[in-house]
């Protein structure tokens, strides 16, 4: 475990340009400022988490990365390329996938069709192979393959949202609150799956969570967001040890 974290930390040091770099990003909803100048990096192969209270702007940042809403100031770059002004679907085609807030499953499509939608960008080149891969990760989905997305439980929908994102073979996976409203056992199952993907395939993950304890334990590094600004950052362990973090996000927060 320790050896593994070290190699990841080393990797982060040796690799100079981050896979995702966010610099001074400001996002507005009308006249209301939601992000007030955010700086954040995600290195290739890392799990990075962003924690913060409800309404801090975490999901806004996730959507701003996809240009919807668009950042009014600042630069977002992916793999060295400025993506700040690209249309949303072109950003997705650079192999960034998101399991968004509220899951956004296509309710009137079957599980299979939802997964087909996830594979749209790579023209189904590895569809069958990837289908087996996500079914191995979430066997529950295989049982439900012909069921409509809208009729499934919250946990199943969350699994489907992540599986759909994985079908595009992303280089960067954005997960927005995958634990929201789910039973602890299912949360564990989902977090284990994320960890496995990161360890075995080197998948880069940017995770937004209110469930700070689990997220910081899982992540290599973390950021804390308050009212649209990053107030703290560090390795997952460092943040877990900080009294401010404990007081604000952990005590009384997790079960």
């Amino acid at each position, binding site marked *: 475990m320790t050896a593994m974290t070290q190699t990841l930390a080393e990797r982060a040091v040796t690799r100079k340009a981050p896979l995702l770099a966010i610099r001074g990003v400001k996002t507005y909803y009308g006249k209301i400022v939601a992000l007030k100048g955010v700086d954040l990096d995600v290195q290739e192969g890392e799990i990075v988490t962003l924690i913060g209270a409800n309404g801090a702007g975490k999901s806004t940042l996730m959507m701003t990365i*996809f240009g*919807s809403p668009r950042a009014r100031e600042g630069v977002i770059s992916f793999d060295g390329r400025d993506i700040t002004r690209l*249309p*949303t*679907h072109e950003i*997705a*085609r650079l192999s960034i*996938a*998101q399991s*968004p807030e509220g899951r*956004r499953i*296509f*309710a*009137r*499509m079957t599980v299979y*069709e939802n997964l*087909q*939608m*996830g594979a*749209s*960008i790579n023209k*189904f080149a590895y569809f069958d192979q990837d289908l087996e891969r996500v079914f191995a990760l979430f066997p529950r989905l295989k049982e439900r393959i012909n069921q409509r997305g*809208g*009729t499934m439980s919250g946990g199943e929908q969350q699994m489907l949202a992540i599986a*759909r994102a994985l079908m*595009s073979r992303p280089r960067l996976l954005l997960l927005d609150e995958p634990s929201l409203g789910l039973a602890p056992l299912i949360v564990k199952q989902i977090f284990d799956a994320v960890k496995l993907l990161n360890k075995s395939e080197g998948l880069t993950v940017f995770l937004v969570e209110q469930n700070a304890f689990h997220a910081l334990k899982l992540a290599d590094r973390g950021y804390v967001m308050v009212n649209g600004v990053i107030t703290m950052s560090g390795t997952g362990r460092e943040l877990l040890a900080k009294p401010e973090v404990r007081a604000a996000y952990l005590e009384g927060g997790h079960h």
Partner: protein
Amino acid sequence: MEVFLQQLINGLTLGSIYGLIAIGYTMVFGIIGMVNFAHGDVFMLSAFIALMLFVVLTQLLGMTSIPLAFVIVLIGAMVLTALWNWAIERVAYRPLRGSFRLAPLISAIGMSIFLSNFVQVVQGPRNKTIPPMFDKVIHLTTGGTYDVTLSLKQILIVLVTAVLLAGFWYLVQKTSLGRAQRACEQDRRMAALLGIDVDRTISLTFVIGAALAAVAGVLYMSYYGVVNFSDGFIPGVKAFTAAVLGGIGSLPGAVLGGLLIGLIEVFWSAYFSSDYKDVAAFSILALTLIFMPSGLLGRPEIEKV
């Protein structure tokens, strides 16, 4: 009995045409939540395109095979009408996306007026006619008070409609284009997150809707043999009624609604009064909206989250 059978045949023929137009209303409503009031005029436009193509083929180029000319006219009208509707969407609706909800609706009404006036100016206000075609008639019953007939045209209309609907159904259900279309209908923002070009998908929806309306236009023109610049309005509103009756947003609903409106109109004319046939059709619109707003096959507004 003879009257009933005859009207059933006539009703299904007319209903096929309404159903083809209704799909265009229902698809556009499904994907951008707008009632495309110009769709009836697109249908009328397609009938004129068909008329011109037919005249060019048979008189200028001297084509003698009517079935071959019909096929070429059908395909040509589908392509040209689709191009028109593609351009209409680009010019009149896309710039208003993200604006307030009524804006594209008003723009659509403007486009409707523009199209009918444009055709009136360039084609003149008089009825345009084509020589009758496929006018062979089969007598289903003879010797009674009244012969029940089935014309070749009617068979053709129902057949062409059925084949195209089957193809269309396959497109929507089984191809990635159809899947993208359905995804945009349910959650445009999520579709974009998955790499779907939403604007392109909306454009294609208009293209497909127009192609089906063009089929209706060609069939209408060959059935009645006459077309006028104002012919977009009444069939358009009836097809809209069909879409509402079937449940707006539902594709099978549009076809079912089309057939029902066709039958209601024809039976009303036969048994009550043909002067009031439009009243009958539009009463259905009012009744559906009052008592069954989600229509026969539509889904209720509220969905499980």
